[in-house]
């Protein structure tokens, strides 16, 4: 077993309640690392043959929670949640912060694989090697706050009874879902610490489909042994030191961007991306600071603490608790809804957290719905109330309806793209042009029209995770923003925010080898390891099914809205030309080893040792000819 790993993975069959430990071959670990990479390998091996038939919300899907060798060593705990995505029908590696992965590795496990479906609401409780499935009926239907406090309280009592006289037990770490996940909303997240979410991918719904409300873990051992402790600490400290130097990022996190991505970059969604520029000082970081001066808030080992504890203690939004919010939630539950005041944005973000939504995915649905209301396609009769831009209370009502699948909420719970297909059919007018998604995944809050933000023309169309702004395609493929780097972070599994600095990026390679004892070079990573993972992800994304399939000729594209010019701000009138997008996409295909139709080349797959993937792709190659 290479170093840095606990060495075992828990496999829990929820249908039979069978619990076992499995080991992953060391060569597989060297090739797929952990997290997103290992999830891709496991999913391909187990489901690849019949990928198109597997219902992401059916018992055959797997739910994976995987750490990587660097988890716990790189500052800030992160774990990767994966499975067949109910958004893209491919594989999304969706990471979430918190101490859960630290506790899991300290309990002796690198990850958990869930198969099957539990008969009744269930949660898993792990205390080192004691692993138990328990009844979760009493917290089913409950929101984040009550779910977490109840389960943690019960678990601590149980530990104190089980181990009398050993002192006070710390809380176990937890991952859980809210009502959104229980009700199979495709925009549901897997959540930790009330406010952190594995949002992209929709794995809250997968967890809900398995009747799995939560996983709690307390590990009392040390983190796994490393290959070279002295070197490991040297590179950890290097990364820490670099990030401790980032004064304003530490102070503001991404929470200053709700103002500046609009005002400075013109790439922030405003009213369902009808605009990307705003200059609303009411949405400035100074206004948010009034609420989050309570506390800075970091996960395990984090030198940055980009998140802060925001609490509203008075006024109409009293009782709202969330983190910051971070930029994505500021945009998607703020500006994109025409909400330009900090307290309303905090309120909506706190509600999304409480219900167990991904703020990006569900925020995208809310804005889509509001635009249909603006255009008179959906009316007061359809919704039951008026839905005007900026009306936080109305958006809150809609959020609750989606979480419970009430009224129009039942359609909207399917996520923007699927809801757009249904509403188009219902109303007899094409509303998919108002869906700001790529391959079923709502795009992150970084537009491309001004050309000032980091995503480029091919970034979203060619991403193997659809609209995921943390995993964008890029040429050159070893660029700082490249998807191949995202695969490293998500497979490590580490927090990307440590690595904005080039020196920190360099330290990461050294740390990877100091921890594992491997000698992985950037060259090997970019030419081989990451490409294997990327190509399997691309393959299953193209296979898709059972409800939707993506044709690269149609769906390797930006959302239709982005072909419209911006009409406000310094970039008003600027047009993104279809020909330029096509050109960028072709350039990426070539750089990454895909054919002109966007399908991984046979010789490229053979070079990577992925003959079985190549064989499976043959049917798609035939159909696109």
């Amino acid at each position, binding site marked *: 077993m290479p170093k840095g790993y606990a060495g075992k993975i828990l496999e829990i069959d929820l249908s039979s309640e069978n619990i076992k430990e499995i080991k992953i071959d060391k060569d597989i670990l060297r090739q797929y690392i952990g997290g997103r990479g290992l999830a891709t390998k496991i999913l391909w091996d187990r489901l690849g043959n019949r990928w198109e038939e597997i219902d992401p919300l059916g018992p055959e899907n797997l739910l994976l929670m995987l750490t990587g060798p660097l988890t716990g060593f790189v500052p800030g705990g992160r774990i990767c949640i994966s499975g067949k995505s109910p958004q893209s029908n491919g594989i999304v590696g969706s990471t979430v912060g918190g101490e859960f992965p630290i506790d899991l590795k300290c309990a002796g496990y690198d990850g958990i694989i869930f198969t099957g479906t539990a008969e009744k609401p269930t949660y898993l409780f792990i205390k080192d090697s004691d692993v138990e499935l328990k009844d979760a009926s009493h917290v089913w239907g409950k929101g984040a706050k009550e779910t977490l406090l109840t389960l943690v309280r019960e678990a601590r009592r149980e530990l104190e009874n089980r181990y009398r006289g050993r002192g*006070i037990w710390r809380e176990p770490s937890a991952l859980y879902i809210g009502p959104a996940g229980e009700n199979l909303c495709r925009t549901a997240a897997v959540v930790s610490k009330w*406010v952190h979410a594995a949002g992209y991918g929709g794995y809250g719904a997968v967890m809900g489909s398995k009747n799995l409300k939560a996983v709690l873990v307390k590990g*009392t051992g040390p983190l796994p042994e490393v290959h070279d402790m002295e070197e490991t600490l040297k590179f950890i400290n290097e990364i820490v030191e670099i990030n401790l130097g980032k004064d304003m990022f530490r102070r503001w996190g991404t929470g200053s961007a709700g103002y500046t991505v609009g005002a400075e970059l013109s790439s922030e969604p405003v009213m369902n991306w009808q605009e990307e520029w705003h200059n609303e000082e009411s949405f400035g970081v100074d206004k948010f600071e009034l609420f989050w001066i*309570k506390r800075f808030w970091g996960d395990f080992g984090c*030198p940055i603490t980009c998140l802060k504890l925001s609490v509203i203690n008075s006024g109409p939004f009293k009782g709202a608790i969330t983190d910051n919010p971070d930029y994505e939630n500021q945009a998607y539950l703020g500006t994109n809804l025409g909400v330009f005041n900090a307290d309303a944005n905090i309120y909506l973000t706190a509600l999304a957290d409480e219900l167990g939504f991904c703020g990006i995915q569900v925020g995208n649905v809310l804005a889509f719905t509001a635009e249909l209301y603006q255009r008179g396609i959906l009316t007061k009769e359809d919704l039951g109330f008026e839905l005007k831009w900026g009306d936080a209370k109305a958006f809150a009502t809609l959020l609750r309806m989606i979480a419970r699948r009430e009224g129009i909420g039942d359609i909207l719970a399917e996520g923007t793209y699927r809801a757009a297909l249904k509403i188009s059919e219902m109303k007899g007018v094409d509303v998919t042009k108002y869906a700001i998604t790529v391959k079923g995944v709502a795009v992150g809050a970084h537009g491309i029209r001004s050309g000032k933000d980091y995503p480029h023309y091919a970034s979203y169309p060619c991403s193997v995770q659809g609209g995921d702004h943390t995993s964008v395609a890029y040429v050159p493929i070893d660029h700082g923003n490249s998807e191949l780097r995202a695969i490293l972070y998500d497979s490590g599994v580490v927090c990307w925010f440590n690595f904005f600095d080039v020196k920190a990026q360099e330290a990461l390679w050294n740390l990877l080898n100091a921890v594992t004892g491997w000698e992985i070079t950037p060259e090997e990573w970019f030419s081989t390891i990451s490409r294997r993972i990327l190509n399997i992800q691309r393959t299953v994304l193209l296979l898709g099914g059972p409800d939707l399939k993506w044709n690269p000729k149609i769906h390797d594209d930006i959302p239709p809205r982005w072909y419209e010019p911006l009409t406000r701000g310094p970039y008003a009138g600027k047009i993104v030309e279809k020909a330029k997008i096509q050109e960028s996409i072709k350039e990426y295909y070539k750089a990454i080893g895909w054919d002109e139709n966007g399908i991984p080349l046979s010789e490229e797959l053979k070079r990577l040792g992925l003959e079985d993937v190549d064989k499976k792709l043959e049917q798609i190659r035939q159909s696109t000819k």
Partner: protein
Amino acid sequence: MSSSGLIWIYRNYLNCSGCRRCEIVCSLSHEGKIWPEASRIRIFMLIPGIEIPHLCAQCHDYPCVSACPVEALSISKETGAVLVDKEKCTACGRCIEACPGNIPFIHPSDNYAVICDLCGGDPECVKACKEGGWNALQLVKRESDYNFKLYAKTPDRITKELAARIYGEEIAEAI
């Protein structure tokens, strides 16, 4: 016992970011490993957003030391820290009961009570906290004072008090 040279770790709960770098450096220094549950300082998060650094408060009357039936605990003349003799300690847990904050705990893999030893006078946790700019932990000169004992409280109690202030009574009562 002279009070000159004695130290204390002042704790400001509101400043704690919950980053737990104190646990990392503490366990590295005492165990040679990153081992959160063996760290002499433990950050409790019984309610999200309410992180509580929990470590020995070196009470003026050291109830843990007098409660030990096998004289495994002693007081460092240099720092005022409680020192645990691992050989003598039987992990009976009397020190935990005697502590008003139930702060000691039994080591997760060995049979002895874990209590902060102030790193012999230069605590690693304080350095990490200071480096991070949090100053939730600060090294101060210890004076002979009953006040230090007031910090020996259970994490549950501190959490309740802090959560009531930050979130309100309802959430505070839920732990």
